[in-house]
């Protein structure tokens, strides 16, 4: 009887506490994108990582996100449907990149609790903290993506703690699954951390590390990543991404650097360049191979809609990307393309 009474009191207390919480409205947001690409050799050629269908008005994805905050607790749930958010980027419900059995995919699914203004913890499946570019086209300046983006993790499931030492310095550390999987079959195997530094107003740098041995991997993979952006003037922004990934026991990896200068002529019109050098580390005695890429994109905004006309030129001196000439057979050292994308964010 006493237990029942205590449970009743506890329930009553919980109810009281719930009424005392500040609750924000449910946030609904997302994006829709579509594109046309024309490769000047009439081949799909550049496949990094999206916008790869030649001479076709093709689909990106529809992305739907929900967020709710009640008191100190919040959740985010974000689902995507369509090639960009499904078979081209993340695994389906069965953990496969298989177009035939593809289903909707989860971009974010996590809960978070802010213990104080400075300290919070988050658990679930989250967009990766590594790298400059992301899957959602609404958050990238260029529509096609970099080799660094395509090679790095897209999402990390895990549990992480974040602490803000000041307005200028904060630290995140956590335990994570293997890259891009809902379930880790060899146990929670990765550790990661992110140091965020804001040296001056407008300049933020993220120093990232993620290390662990994935299920079935020949060695422990460790990635060091620097992602930074500096809004130097109202019009000019400069971004940089540099990363090094190594799999132990000489099992390859990659390294690369990408620079992102962007200039806003007006609130609605901006031009941005991406210059990238990317190196695939050879496994064992195999030699390294490298590619270089330059991409010029415009962002023309009207309300929630952004048009992204883009030209891109990739140089592949080591023939690692399988570029072909216009006959579709002879290998080519370079590829170039034009694309026009429309992205609506709401």
């Amino acid at each position, binding site marked *: 009887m006493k237990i029942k009474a205590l449970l009743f009191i506890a329930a009553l207390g919980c109810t009281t506490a719930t009424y005392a919480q500040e609750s924000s409205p449910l946030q609904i*947001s997302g994006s829709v994108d579509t594109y046309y690409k024309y490769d000047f050799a009439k081949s799909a050629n550049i496949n990094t990582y999206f916008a790869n269908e030649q001479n076709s008005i093709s689909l990106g994805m529809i992305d739907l996100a929900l967020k709710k905050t009640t008191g100190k607790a919040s959740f985010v749930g974000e689902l995507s449907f369509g090639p960009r958010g499904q078979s081209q980027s993340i695994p389906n419900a069965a953990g496969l990149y298989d177009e035939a059995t593809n289903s909707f995919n989860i971009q974010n699914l996590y809960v978070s609790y802010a213990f104080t203004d400075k300290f919070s913890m988050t658990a679930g499946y989250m967009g990766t903290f590594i790298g400059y570019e992301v899957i959602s086209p609404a958050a990238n300046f260029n529509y096609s993506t970099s080799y660094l983006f395509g090679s790095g993790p897209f999402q990390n499931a895990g549990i992480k703690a974040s602490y803000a030492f000041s307005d200028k310095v904060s630290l995140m550390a956590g335990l994570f699954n293997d890259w891009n999987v809902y379930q880790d079959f060899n146990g929670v195997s990765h550790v990661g951390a992110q140091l965020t530094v804001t040296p001056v107003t407008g300049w933020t740098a993220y120093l990232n590390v993620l290390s662990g041995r994935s299920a079935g991997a020949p060695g422990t993979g460790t990635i060091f990543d620097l992602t930074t952006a500096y809004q130097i003037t109202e019009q000019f922004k400069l971004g940089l991404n540099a990363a090094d990934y190594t799999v132990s026991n000489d099992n390859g990896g990659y390294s690369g650097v990408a620079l992102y200068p962007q200039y806003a002529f007006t609130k*609605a019109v901006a031009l941005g360049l991406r210059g990238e050098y990317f190196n695939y580390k050879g496994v064992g005695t195999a030699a390294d191979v490298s590619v270089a890429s330059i991409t010029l994109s415009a962002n023309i905004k009207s309300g929630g809609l952004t048009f992204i006309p883009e030209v891109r030129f990739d140089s592949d001196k080591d023939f690692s990307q399988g570029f072909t000439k216009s006959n579709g057979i002879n290998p080519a050292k370079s590829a170039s393309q034009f694309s026009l994308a429309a992205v609506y964010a709401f």
Partner: protein
Amino acid sequence: MTCVVYANAQDEKLLPVDEQGKFIYYEVVTLKGTTQDSLKRRAINYFKNQNKDVQFKSAQGDTAFIATGKMIITKTLLVMSHPSGEILYRFQVEVKEGKYRFWLSDFSFIPYQRDRYGNFVASTTIGIPLEREPGKLNAGQWKEYQLQTATYAKGFAVKFKQVMASSNPRVESVPEKKVISKNW
């Protein structure tokens, strides 16, 4: 400061502009019989206890106080809602015997962008002055920001004047912890 404020003939719902062509909310309030010292204490109380969105920056002498603040612009469509940006502003108060004046100025807009975790965050650190002509592509949206700012400034002024008019300013109440006792 010499403050000449021009009413905006195009739309009275917008804030008026000052002699530099910048939006401003400006008001002089007379409180006969209230001392300068009392008004000063009420203003400081406002900065410290009454409005979390306002951050005290500096004082000029004993009678002028400067703060910065921000308001969140929320996009609402039927049941949908999420923040689309924030308006930063400067808030200044000057007190004298029996009267005070205050103004909100230097309004600038910072757009939000959804980050990789699904949260809306500032996409830049440098605000766009709210008076700036946005161009045809974003004219409707920009007008909405200007209207929301005007509504906010008017509401802000009402609450600030309430605090300044009260001889015993209300300190923001902290919800009491309810302890439910079953002893009887």
